[in-house]
């Protein structure tokens, strides 16, 4: 199907474009940007007047809850959420049930996720069998089945020798490893950042050192093994400083931050709101400010949603007992825009962090609107807004600390390989 997207404001950070340009799509790819190709006759013209046309968003972490957690969410509902959020590619962590430690499971997931309305799925495979931190997975086989990287989600590898060997093995094939910096012992009973708020509320705390000590181990092992390392969901200013210093000394390391840590701090726990119970914990205002600046400067490579749908029952319990996690696919774009507006950054910078920069971390040729690229495109109204309510969220996870807020930006249309996966009226 040939599609022309006309009159839109094209923002393609990878190609440094922010201008009024039309986009021409044919056979699921971008045929041309600006002038129509010779003899192009559109089957459909999408009028993008007053809308921004940008690459479809790439989310580095979205839990689809399949296989194993279907009572929390299903592929259908979460992919609908992704499309409604303008997300056209997503990476999912290995902590499904069973974990993604066998090629068969990965193949089945990719097969289940193949649908014209569904975003592209890039599974992160398990680094160790069962995520137990003892035996290696068949990383090469998993890579062939479709895994783009290997990680442990929130399960620590306690035995540092096993961790080192896992990184060495991954480095053999130049597979990237994605790790959450979290010491298995410090703050293991904690549910909130170890500071004034946790003390006042009587919540067991998780100190910053739980992140920095684990990070130190990971960075030194990365240096020794030469593995490409990506640190997921950094939460503290101290961790960011360590990563910046590591890069200066030659270690190849990327990192991401979640929408929750970008905007919230432990003060947002308020009167024990279980929606603010997430992992790693929301830290204090100074950490949040450092993360916001770090993402602006590019020291933090990408912004992700860390989409984790949790069923209502698991949140309607006292704070410490609540299952951690927040829904986020539909909030990735609005919260990126909100951050950019508050920091007075250009739309292009904001969008880069959720398109081409995220693609670079994932190692996929996506996140651009170059001619020849897959037609994964998002059209949104920058002056529109999205009111976050249980009804407006398409995900089965209605649990987010942003409930009730009105956020900037409204997705109007999402195309995946030239197919309209989502469309909403004006």
């Amino acid at each position: 199907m040939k599609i022309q997207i006309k009159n839109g404001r094209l923002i393609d950070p990878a190609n440094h474009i922010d201008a009024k340009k039309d986009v021409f799509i044919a056979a699921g790819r971008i045929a041309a940007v600006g002038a129509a190709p010779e003899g192009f006759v559109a089957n459909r013209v999408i009028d993008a007047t007053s809308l921004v046309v940008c690459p479809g968003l790439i989310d580095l972490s979205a839990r689809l809850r399949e296989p194993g957690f279907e009572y929390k969410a299903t592929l259908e509902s979460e992919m609908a959420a992704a499309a409604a959020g303008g997300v056209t590619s997503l990476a999912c962590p290995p902590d499904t049930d069973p974990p993604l430690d066998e090629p068969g499971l990965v193949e089945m997931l990719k097969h289940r996720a193949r649908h014209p309305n569904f975003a592209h799925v890039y599974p992160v495979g398990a680094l160790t069998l069962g995520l137990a931190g003892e035996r290696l997975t068949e990383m090469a086989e998993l890579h062939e089945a479709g895994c783009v990287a290997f990680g442990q989600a929130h399960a620590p590898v306690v035995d540092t020798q096993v961790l080192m060997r896992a990184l060495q093995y991954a480095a053999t094939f130049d597979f990237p490893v994605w790790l959450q910096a979290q010491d298995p012992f410090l703050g293991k009973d904690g549910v909130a950042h170890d500071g004034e708020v946790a003390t006042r509320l009587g919540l067991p705390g998780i100190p910053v050192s739980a992140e920095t000590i684990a990070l130190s181990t990971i960075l030194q092992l990365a240096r020794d093994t030469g593995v490409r390392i990506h640190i997921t969901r950094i939460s503290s200013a101290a961790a960011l400083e360590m990563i910046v210093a590591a890069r200066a000394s030659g270690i190849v390391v990327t990192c991401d931050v979640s929408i929750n840590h970008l905007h919230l701090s432990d003060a947002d726990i308020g009167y024990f709101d279980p929606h603010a119970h997430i992992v790693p914990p929301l830290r204090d205002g100074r950490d949040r400010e450092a993360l916001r600046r770090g993402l602006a400067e590019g020291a933090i490579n990408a912004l992700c949603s860390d989409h984790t749908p949790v069923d209502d029952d698991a949140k309607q319990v006292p704070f410490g007992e609540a299952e951690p996690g927040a829904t986020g696919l539909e909030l990735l774009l609005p919260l990126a825009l909100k951050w950019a507006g508050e920091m007075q950054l250009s739309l292009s910078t904001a969008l880069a962090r959720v398109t081409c920069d995220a693609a670079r971390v994932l190692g996929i040729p996506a996140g651009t609107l170059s001619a020849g690229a897959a037609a994964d495109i998002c059209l949104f109204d920058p002056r529109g807004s999205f009111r976050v309510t249980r009804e407006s969220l398409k995900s089965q996870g209605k649990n987010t600390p942003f409930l009730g807020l009105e956020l900037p930006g409204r997705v109007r249309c999402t195309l995946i390989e030239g197919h309209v996966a989502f469309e909403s009226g004006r």
Partner: protein
Amino acid sequence: MRNPQLTKNGELQHLLTIDGLPREILTAILDTAAPFTEVAEREVKKLPLLRGKSVFNLFFENSTRTRTTFEIAAKRLSADVINLNISPSSTAKGETLLDTVDNLCAMQADMFVVRHASSGAPFLMAQHLAAMDLEHIHVINAGDGRHAHPTQGLLDMYTIRHYKQDFTGLVVAIVGDVLHSRVARSQIHALITLGVPEVRVIGPKTLIPADVDKLGVRVFHDMRAGLKDVDVVMMLRLQNERMQGALLPSPQEFFKYYGLTADKLDCARSDAIVMHPGPMNRGVEIDSAVADGPHAVILPQVTFGIAVRMAVMSMLAGA
């Protein structure tokens, strides 16, 4: 967001924590408790204030002492009292806290006194009741995790006011396992709100929570230095579990450095009072001679506790 303890008019709807309550409300509770103390001296120790009301003691954590004082307080107000001890095994069978609350509301509960192992559980209950439009049902927190034990904090303040009258000239020290103590947190908030100029916490570093100085207290690790010129010594209970988890080596070493003995008490003012929320571990946090000595006001605390709880229940029921 509005403090869930207060109504739109700023009156007390629930008593969940002392943190965030204005001085006027704390003082009103202490003032209201005073006339309740003399009820215990009468032949008929009953007042008709809560006649016809059902008070449910919802204890998810075992505590005979606290539950008994709430029961006595409610019965002295002529309320019907129903005790529910919910063991961990029955919650494991699947009924959640909110399901239990819903069932009891269907049985015409007027007031819940709740003790729970998780910080914030009473807030969850209060928010749920508000969402169900059940604003006539009141919640009293009898202790939630490490977070708060507001009636204990209030009865401690009543005790201090009884013996020392004026809060604004006092130096008060809280000694022991502050990290795990909901009593300590409630005491700190109450003392500061009532205008005590110097509040100290004394304990080893493993038992003092992060950033506690931001709550307005001075931290001491040397007990003799911390007790110097103190008017009120508030001892905390040390639980046996603290020896596991690498927080303390032994009760003996703790007693030697942080137990209240006569010679450590000599560092305080000569008219200092000694308090303890009970039950006491004699020889661990407090020496028997001090516990039974002239400075100790531990038994009066218990008597005042009943009056304070009667006052809280009456104020909530009349709101």
